[in-house]
């Protein structure tokens, strides 16, 4: 039981990271109907920027801090904000250079362009940190006893940060002028422009926020997991994309729940013993997740929260 509860919490924390990445896919798809293949690689660069900022501040994996202090907390906050801003600006640049010129081209063109950007970013990552695993700083954060379970504090922290970010996004989208403009552009770009909405600006803001959330996700990923490498974002991105499709691509709440569900599955699959599946569930989690993706696409192509939207006029 304790193992189960522990896996539940780990699953939720992992899922929260997927949810944050999935939001970027779903926001971009919602507004310009493009699967932004470069999104996962933006996440990778976010993990690298996190490492770079912390090492500039003298916090390195080789020389990890021994105690938590307010100085360390502020350094971490700096790394988080830095990663957010770096990824956000990168996202805007990518849209400007690789997607906007193709906005009225056939849909395959920006898709190929996105794959191209993805490959470029992977190579940038490889040039920057090489073709090896790069360790994150391990923080001196322990665990707490919650009832029968011994929980790593970091999981709780990850969950809290992710929930704050998601709640903020939800408020922004549903309650504010910018959010209304985003929804308007997503639904009918020309009509939105004719109501005075600067469509390019709003698409830029969408990329800024979506990519920024991937940056924030990269930061909290660095707290929870041991290391990163140039291909990390591609793999994690695929899983997060599955989460977005599970929730119904284009639907923000769907992406959040999709991420959490995928995280839970990822974690709970480990419970399957080696007697059932060779090498135990742990060896199968990706296979299970993509099997789920196929099942969703077959039986509920619009996702759990998606509606079959009528054809645009």
């Amino acid at each position: 039981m304790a193992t189960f509860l522990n896996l539940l919490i780990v699953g939720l924390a992992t899922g929260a990271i997927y949810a944050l990445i999935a939001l970027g896919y779903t926001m971009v798809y919602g507004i310009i109907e493009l699967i932004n293949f470069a999104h996962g690689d933006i996440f990778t660069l976010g993990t690298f920027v996190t490492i770079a900022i912390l090492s500039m501040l003298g916090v390195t994996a080789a020389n990890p801090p021994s105690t938590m202090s307010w100085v360390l907390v502020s350094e971490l906050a700096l790394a988080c904000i830095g990663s957010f801003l770096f990824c956000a600006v990168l996202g805007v640049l990518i849209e400007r250079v690789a997607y906007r010129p193709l906005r009225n081209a056939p849909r395959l063109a920006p898709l190929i362009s996105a794959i191209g950007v993805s490959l470029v970013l992977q190579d940038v990552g490889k040039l920057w940190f090489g073709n090896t695993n790069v360790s994150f700083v391990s923080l001196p954060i322990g665990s707490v006893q919650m009832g029968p379970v011994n929980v790593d504090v970091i999981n709780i922290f990850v969950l809290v940060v992710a929930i704050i970010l998601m709640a903020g996004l939800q408020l922004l989208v549903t309650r504010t002028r910018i959010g209304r403009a985003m929804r308007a552009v997503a639904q009918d770009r020309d009509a939105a422009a004719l109501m005075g909405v600067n469509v390019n600006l709003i698409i830029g803001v969408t990329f800024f926020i979506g990519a920024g959330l991937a940056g924030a996700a990269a930061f909290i990923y660095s707290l929870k997991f041991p290391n990163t490498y140039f291909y990390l974002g591609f793999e994690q991105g695929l899983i997060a994309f599955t989460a977005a499709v599970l929730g119904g691509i284009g639907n923000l709440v769907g992406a959040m729940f999709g991420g959490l569900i995928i995280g839970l599955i990822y974690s709970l699959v480990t419970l399957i013993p080696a007697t059932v599946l060779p090498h135990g569930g742990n060896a199968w989690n990706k296979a299970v997740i993509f099997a789920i993706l196929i099942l969703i696409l077959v039986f509920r192509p619009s996702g759990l929260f998606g509606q079959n939207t009528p054809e645009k006029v």
Partner: protein
Amino acid sequence: MSSEEVRTSSQPAAAAVASKTEALLELRNVTKTFGGLTAVSKVDLIVRPREIVSVIGPNGAGKTTVFNLITGIYEPSSGEILLAGRSLAGLSPDKIVLQGITRTFQNIRLFNNMTVLENVLVGQHTRLKAGVLGSLFRTRSVVAEEKRARERALELLGFFGTALVARQDEYVMNLSYADRRRVEIARALAADPKLLLLDEPTAGMNEVETLEAVKYIRRLRDELGLTILLIEHKLAVTMGMSDHIAVLDYGQKIADGLPDEVRYDERVIAAYLGRQSETKAEDDESAAEEA
């Protein structure tokens, strides 16, 4: 040329008054070609403040293209469009809204997954200032602005009586066709326009609703001081409320004058009667659209 004849020959008094007022909207020799096809050819049009002007013509005459040119969806191939004497050349649609022109659409284009109130709030987009950071941290000025915006939106919905105010939180797709047309006008009003373009504001409405629409279009001018340019198919509607009517046929303006002048203009009659079968087909089409 014929239009000038109409104007000078038969309405000297109106022309004399008109020449004293500056045009709010002026199209000068505007042409729009798509590849080899000329959709709008050398059209001149003058709309003065607080006028209600109609553009009529058979299907495919270029009426909606004229609207798309004025609102910046298309750039004229040649010619010039001026609002209060200032050229609109090179302005994107959202910048033209800022200049004071908003519109509605022939096939209603509301944001269906938003509520009535939210649709009108999108219309106010250009008049509000809140940015991303201010919105995220909900600064006092953003909260106050949002409150004012909601009050203003309700005021605009109130222009059409209490029915829409009561349904402010409903999704627009649950509204009746006539109500959706009203919300679309409220949304267009939200940007505080000087000139309102209405693309077939009574399309798909029954007789009662049409009469009511005519009433509120007049009120838009009389109570809100707006200038209105509209495309209309129901001749009875246009004849009754327009200060003058421009008639397009094959992209050219074949007449422009008082309703009565246009009604008896030979070329107008020829344009309409000559292709009556087409006009009928179009009516069937819009009927099918409604269904």
